[in-house]
């Protein structure tokens, strides 16, 4: 009896082991769902200039060049992510820093295309200028497979950037007044060194510490994340840098005032050779105090006059 039970027991174990072995062997024939990204459930397109990107064409490039940091699922949890600061972008949230569109809206395809080509300074995201334009457009389409927002929402509308007025010492002075009034200095510091009173407390939307931009460091523009032209700087504070503490000022700054602020921000780049610093130098190197223009004519107080806002 005992022997019989033992035989039954071992044969049960044997068949279990056999079954397990068979399952394991069978799994090798099954579609590979291990370390590789699953096939995207949907195909997305991107449109950049005359190019049309197709997500299915970017699968190999994404796996080879992007997944190591951004992860197979696009959630920013690639195997290298733990070593990186700032953390790789999580595409599943569809929140992007460098946009030409209003805060809270999706970027344009071109915004993402440019970011891939530009890289992100002060991060581990390199300049991917080794890709062809078609490869970049395909990757933009691939990135769009990670968040359902790309199917539900349209790309945001690019904000309008009016022509830049000439740089004058007045525009720099007014820009400085705005820098104070809008509390830019609370994070960026009075000299734009990124050392304002709130700077040390800042975290991004994933609770990672983040530093405000230091305008004064470096001699050129190469450290601007989202492009280094005056138009790019204009866009930064009008669109905000989503996912970070940098808000949008689109509802609160008039276009001309925004240009004045750009002119002042350029003077914070003390080592940079540019028209703004030339104008400042010609004016004696000191920014004069800004005088509100409306307050100069108080002859008859009027409601309309008070709402002028300076310009």
């Amino acid at each position: 009896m005992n022997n019989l039970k033992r035989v039954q027991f071992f044969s049960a174990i044997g068949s279990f082991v056999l079954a397990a072995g068979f399952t394991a062997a069978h799994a090798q024939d099954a579609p590979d769902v291990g370390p590789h990204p699953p096939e995207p459930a949907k195909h997305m397109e991107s449109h950049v200039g005359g190019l049309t990107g197709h997500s299915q064409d970017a699968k190999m490039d994404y796996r080879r060049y992007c997944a190591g940091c951004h992860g197979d699922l696009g959630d920013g949890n690639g195997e290298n992510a733990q070593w990186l600061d700032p953390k790789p972008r999580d595409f599943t949230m569809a929140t992007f820093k460098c946009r030409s569109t209003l805060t809270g809206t999706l970027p344009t395809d071109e915004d993402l295309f440019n970011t891939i080509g530009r890289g992100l300074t002060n991060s581990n995201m390199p300049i991917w200028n080794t890709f062809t334009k078609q490869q970049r457009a395909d990757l933009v389409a691939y990135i769009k497979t990670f968040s359902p927002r790309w199917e539900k929402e349209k790309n945001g509308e690019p904000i309008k950037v009016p022509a830049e007025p000439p740089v004058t010492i007045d525009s720099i002075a007014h820009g400085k007044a705005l820098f104070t009034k809008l509390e830019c200095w609370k994070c960026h510091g009075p000299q734009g060194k990124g050392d304002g009173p709130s700077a040390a407390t800042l975290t991004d939307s994933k609770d990672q510490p983040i530093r405000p931009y230091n305008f004064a460091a470096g001699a050129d523009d190469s450290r601007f994340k989202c492009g280094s032209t005056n138009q790019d700087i204009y866009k930064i504070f009008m669109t905000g840098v989503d996912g970070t503490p940098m808000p949008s000022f689109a509802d609160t700054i008039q276009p001309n005032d925004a240009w004045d602020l750009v002119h002042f921000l350029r003077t914070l780049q003390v080592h940079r050779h540019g028209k703004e610093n030339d104008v400042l130098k010609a004016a004696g190197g000191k920014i004069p105090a800004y005088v509100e223009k409306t307050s100069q004519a108080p002859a008859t107080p009027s409601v309309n006059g008070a709402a002028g806002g300076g310009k």
Partner: protein
Amino acid sequence: MRASKPCIAVAIATLCPALMFAGTISGKVTYTGTPVKQKPISMAKEPSCDKQHPTPITTETVVTGANNTLENVVVYISAGGDDANAPAQAVTFTQKGCQYVPHVIALHTGQELHVVNGDQTSHNIHPMPKANPEWNKSQPPGSPAIVQKFDNPEFISVKCQIHPWMHGWFAVLKTNHVSITGDGGGFSLPNLPPGKYTVTAWHEDYGTQTQDVTITGNETKSIDFSFKAKAY
């Protein structure tokens, strides 16, 4: 005489059943244990706000009242209720004295939110949602209200990064049956037609609890929630 009363009752019940059988779920939220001590906030760097607080304020992660009552708990019907549309009127969220007033607001999905700056300083309003698009806007003194809405239900943490002590919550829900506990920890969910309901109580630090309640008619059901205080 005797027979006429039920007749009238039946007539009224047919005409306006909502009024006849409007149940209420009410109760109180308390805590057990010792809540972590709230940290004092120094607004010395923002004098215009600092002078509005003769007695120093503290963080509001856990706000308690007498007899172990718990404030800022969002109590709402999470299942069984009607999926009514968003109310037409907006909910206002005010920045006053460099604080969010109130600390927690409840919104229906799609309901208008008005963010108002009542201060002499600029704020940035930065909700950090997971299921809705994230935005972040500057609001200098005297600016018009920021008008926004959220389409998906979730509890959204909101911050001002210029004043890092400012922290609040948007409770975006798919119901209009919601009550946020104030001083005394009480809540009341009126106008509930007969049915089986799940009531959820959410606290930003202590998490969520649920209870099932059945309303059979014109009655008030009393339920209480008790959260265990976190020691850290």
